[in-house]
């Protein structure tokens, strides 16, 4: 267990390991996305009230779910960076922030596109939507804070503090529809009891959520590899790797 964690912190080992992982993850992600999109957009039945416009759920919900989960990845990396001072944790945090920002933006934009025909408004300042906008700014804040520092160790520490303080927003987003009166509906997928969404629509949705998790892992890994290449551009192990190839 501990040897694996120590190895993860070693750039040459991680670079090789992530290379193998990316090679597997890329075809898996693409096939899951294609399968989920085909199933959700073409095979799944239309909704009894919304007709076909509900199908945006197959992008909106996975993007939102992974945006929330991705924040925990970033915040955990921040905690590891603060406590153990592992460089790889800094790189993970830095790699996750822009991906999370894009996913949050996708959730906000698809929500607005769905909201106009369904609710009758592009944007409403209800608790769910506003807290999601805050999440978007938190992600952008981490990206900007990293760039603001010349010293990358100091940058990582500041970003770790920001992302850890921001974690309080995640349960707020998740529970906002239950704690306050909001326009956004409560969750359709329930962990306990029967889901409020019919199984013929639920299964492609779960597949798309899985696909988005893979997409997140893939893009974060690719980001980390690019970051590693830049940080170690002068090091001997990279020169060896480049020379060998």
């Amino acid at each position, binding site marked *: 267990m501990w040897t694996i964690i120590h190895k993860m912190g070693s750039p040459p080992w991680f670079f090789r390991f992530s290379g193998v992982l990316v090679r597997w993850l890329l075809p898996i992600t693409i096939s899951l996305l294609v399968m989920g999109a085909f199933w959700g957009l073409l095979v799944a039945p239309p909704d009894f009230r919304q007709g076909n416009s509900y199908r945006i759920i197959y992008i909106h919900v996975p993007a939102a779910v992974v945006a929330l989960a991705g924040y925990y990845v970033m915040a955990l990396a921040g905690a590891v960076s603060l406590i153990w001072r592992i460089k790889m944790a800094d790189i993970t945090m830095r790699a996750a922030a822009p991906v999370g920002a894009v996913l949050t933006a996708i959730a906000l934009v698809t929500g607005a596109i769905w909201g106009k025909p*369904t*609710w009758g408004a592009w944007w409403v300042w209800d608790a769910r939507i506003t807290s999601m906008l805050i999440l978007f700014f938190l992600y952008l804040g981490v990206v900007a804070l990293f760039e603001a520092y010349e010293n990358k160790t100091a940058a990582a520490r500041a970003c770790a503090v920001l992302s850890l303080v921001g974690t309080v927003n995640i349960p707020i987003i998740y529970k906002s529809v239950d704690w306050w009166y909001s326009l956004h509906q409560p969750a359709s997928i329930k962990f306990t009891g029967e889901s409020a969404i019919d199984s013929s*629509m639920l299964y492609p949705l779960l597949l798309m959520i899985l696909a988005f998790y893979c997409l997140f892992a893939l893009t974060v890994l690719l980001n980390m590899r690019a970051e590693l290449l830049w940080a170690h551009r002068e090091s001997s192990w990279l020169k060896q790797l480049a020379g060998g190839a």
Partner: protein
Amino acid sequence: MHPIRKQRLVLVSLMVVLSSVAIGLVAFALRDNINLFYPPADVIAGKAPTDRTIRLGGMVVEGSIERSETELDTTFWVTDYEGSVAVRYSGILPDLFAEGEGVVAEGMLDAAGTLVATQVLAKHDENYMPPEVAAALEGKTAPAERTALP
């Protein structure tokens, strides 16, 4: 664990807990402002201000929608099953606006306690199902399924 790291772990945990408590207290203090709308029972009890724009949310009462023959004027009642408030609106209603469904209306209360709405939004619930399943449910348990409050 190394004592310095243990100390940092405690500091990080404290940071997360204290910031959560701080933001939790702020959210608790501002809960009335975070709520998007007033339920009809609060409006009837006089908890909603009458001198400025408010939002009212609830279910459209079955059989209460009255449309004008010549204008876009519509009146309907909104209920939370503890009380009902009348809404008057002139304009185009969203597609999902229907009796027995959720709605959020924005406007001002007049002297008679009717909400003169400037905007009406449909509130979609969390139920998603194919038309066949809905038709099958309609025959049996549909009304019971829909009594949940927004």
